[in-house]
Each structure stands twice: as structure tokens, then as C-alpha cells.
């Protein structure tokens, strides 16, 4: 069970207070009417679903009710960072593979350390 740092509450909280809301950074097309069926379908349904570093949206449903983003490894389940809505991740799959080469170790938000 995850231990998630809520960037708005400034604390780690139990997963039971949160709901996962799918892939992060999915933006609604600015001009829906200009989209083809294919583009609209892509926006609605098609997802990255990576095995590895993943950016996902969560909501602190039983808490501050704010939506925020989590960068998490989908195999180890390690949470690499959490960040507020509207912000960009500082850790990505690319930066992770570079970091691994440089032997840098990221901070795990999931465990108080």
C-alpha cells in the first residue's frame, strides 16, 4: 500500500485517502470541433501505459480534495516525486535512464527517509 506525499498537505498520507485518476498531462484539445474522430478518440482513450517511470494524476479525495501528479515506477511502485497540478515533472523515463548511468539515486517519497 502506497504512502503518498500530498504536495498540498505537505505530508505523507495513506493511499486510502487518495484515488488514482489515470495518466497525467492529458490535455483536452483546445478546439474539439477541429479534431478528427481519430484525434478525439486518442484524447479520450489511448494511453502511454508504460512499464517503468509513469506520470499519473491522483486526487487527495479524503483530504484536501486537490488533484496532483505523481511520478511513479510501475514495476517497483517507487514514488519518485509528487508535484502540483500545472507543474512539470523533474524526473522522467529519460532522466531516469541517464541518472542510472550516472549512478544517481533519487529520493523515494514513499518512505520517510
Amino acid at each position, binding site marked *: *500500500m*502506497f504512502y503518498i506525499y500530498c504536495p498540498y498537505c505537505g505530508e505523507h498520507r495513506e*493511499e*486510502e485517502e487518495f*484515488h*488514482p485518476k*489515470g*495518466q497525467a498531462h492529458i490535455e483536452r484539445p483546445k478546439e474539439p470541433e477541429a479534431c478528427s*474522430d*481519430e484525434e*478525439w*478518440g*486518442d484524447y*479520450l*482513450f*489511448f*494511453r*502511454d*501505459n*508504460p*512499464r517503468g517511470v*509513469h506520470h*499519473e494524476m491522483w486526487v487527495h479525495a479524503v483530504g484536501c480534495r486537490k488533484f496532483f501528479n505523481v511520478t*511513479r515506477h*510501475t*514495476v*517497483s*511502485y517507487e514514488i519518485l516525486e509528487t508535484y502540483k497540478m500545472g507543474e512539470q515533472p523533474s524526473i522522467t523515463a529519460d532522466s531516469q535512464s541517464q541518472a542510472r548511468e550516472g549512478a544517481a539515486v533519487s529520493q523515494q517519497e514513499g518512505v520517510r527517509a
Partner: protein
Amino acid sequence: MQRYSGFGLVKHALSHHENWERQWRNPTPKKQYDVIIVGGGGHGLATAYYLAKEFGVKNVAVIEKGWLGGGNTARNTTIVRSNYLWDESAALYEHAMKLWEGLSQDLNYNVMFSQRGVLNLGHTLQDMRDIQRRVNANRLNGIDGEVLDAKGVQELVPIMDCSKNARYPVMGASWQPRAGVARHDAVAWGYARGADAHGVDILQQTEVTGFKIRDGQIYGVHTNRGDIEAKTVGCVTAGNSSVLAKMGGFNLPLESHPLQALVSEPIKPILDTVVMSNQVHGYISQSDKGDLVIGAGIDGYNGYGQRGSYPTVEHTLQAIVEMFPIFSRVRMNRQWGGIVDTCPDACPIISKTPVKGLYFNCGWGTGGFKATPGSGHVFAASLAKGEMHPIAEPFSMFRFHSGALIDEHGAAGVAH
């Protein structure tokens, strides 16, 4: 292939079991095949089996990165039923059901398909409306089933709390007598043995690392054991489908989620039927070994870790004890998780893709096991002909562009 029988067993016993043959070979990969199946789970092996046996395509390889039947085939709760709501899914699952009914004999491998019946409980008025809608549709589609009231449910499962004291009293159920359970590992092994006997090469410990694509047409795969060529490639990799699709340069409308299950310690026979409940959210059957096999829901986040979060297990056992208060003192032995690739409409994808010659069979979510023979059969037919089998046709990935979804959520909201 060495045929199995009771007589054979005696014969082998007299020779101290020293003469049993391998159930499948461990071949060296050839340079080229007519068809490559990526994924050696039940669906992939079934596809290969039917390709070779029924559609005359014998130069086939099944590429499995681990051990065959090691994914969701080995991790599901083995429920088989075909009482789906929509015509499209009903046709698919009933096609599978008919194959299940002769599968042990066809494979000469006892997959222990046990038609002990499945109950889908209704606890609210809307549940009952949905049940009636589904059973009526099933009947007109030629699928067995009836609607039971609470009394009928109680008669079938006397140990269940069907009283009004329950938080969500049982109002009734749908009952499909032909449904039941099967022995999951045996399905994979039986298909593997059958496919192997028809000349299919099963390549275990072989991982596909990329596709060879030229001018939008696939012509082979890269693997950790070298390149292998084929103009037709079918991916049947369940939870890892998105990863494979990425190699082909496209996305799928999938999310891979953990799906958990658990078993109790073995106890003496006490539950003959499979009982499933949407509203209190749990399902249960008893295996031949005596374990209560219990399914939990999927976790909402994406996860390839073959494990989920503990509250899901808690909620599931709460549901089980709510339905069966006498199980409070039975003990949970083990829990585990699989990776299920879920589609937005809770229906699978059996489809061509933007890459010519590359086909995907995925998105089975929580319902893949029960479809194994049917899925393999229609996928094999499609791969052999290069055109989708009519039963597979509606399950195209492009339905998510047109909007022609087949929304089974209402009928299949509970993981199973």
C-alpha cells in the same frame, strides 16, 4: 504425441514412470516462420494450436519471455462463463464455452473443466434489472441461464446469508449452469502439448525486444536470441501489450492494472458453485484441492508489479464474510496479483493494427481466462486468413475512434 489415458498411466506405473515423454519440445528458433505468436500464455498457445490444427498453418513459433502459462493464465481464479450482455461479447464467450465443453478430449489433456454453475448475485433493484436484461439477452442468444429469486439462491447455496439482515440483502441472481471453473495451468500445458505435437515451436525464455517493420509491414521480430522473421505476427501479451505496441510505434487504449486474488487454506468441500457479487464486491469458488478461491477487485493505478494494495484484499474478504459469515474462522493462506490490461469499455481488443501484418489480441481485463479457447480460435482464424473472423470483427481497436464501444461495465463491473 504420447496419448494419455488411465490405461497408459498403469502401463507407465509398471515401468516406474521412466518412459514419459516431454510434453513439449525445447526447440532452437528457426530463422523464419509463417506466423509468430508473441506471448506463451493460454491465449497465445491456443492461437498456435488452432492455427496448426485447424487452419493448416504449421510453421508457427510461440515466443515467451518467461515460462509458458506464467502470466495471468497462472494467476486467475479460473472462472468460465459466457453470460455476457451484449451480442458481440456473448458471441465471443459462448464460442469459447462450446470449445471448453470438449476441450479435455480435444487436447487429450484433462483441463478439469467443471460445469458447477455460476451465480451472479443481485442486491439492489438496479442489479436485478441488469440481471434480467442480461439473462433475457442470453436466452435469445442461445446461452443458458435463468433468474433466481433469493429463495432459489438459498436453495443452491445453503451456507450463504440470504436473510434480510444482511447489509445488502440478496434479492436474486442470474444462474448459468453450464458455467464453472477449469484448471488454469492445465489449459496452458494442454494447448502447449497439442501445439507442439502439430509442429509449433514453443520458444521459452525468449524475449521480443522489437519489431522489424518496413514500409508499414511487419516482417519479423528482434529477440534476445536473435532475429526471427515472419510476415504475420500476433501479440497476445496481456498486461504487457502496451509495451509491445510501443515497439510497433502506436498506443493502445489500455491501462495495465494489478488484479489480486487469494486463497484460503484447504478445507473440506463446502461450496459447489461459483458465487459472484457486484454490489458487495467479491467472488468465490472452492477448488478441488479444497481452497476457497477468492477474487478481489482491480487496483485503480497502473501497475506491472504483480501485486496490488492491501485494502483491496481487506474489502474483498469483508465481502466474502458478509455473504458467508461462517467463513470468519477460515484462514487466508496466500494472495497474489496479476497484471490485467483493461479497456475503457471492459471488452477486449482483437484487431489489426496500424502496422500491416501485426495483430493484437489484448485488453481482456479481468475476463481473459474464460475466453481462452474462443479467443485463440478466432485469432488463429484471423491470422490465417489475414481478415478478422466475424466474431472478432467488433473488437477492433479502431472502435475507440468511431465510438462503437461495447460497454460491458454494467454487466461485468466486478472483476472475475
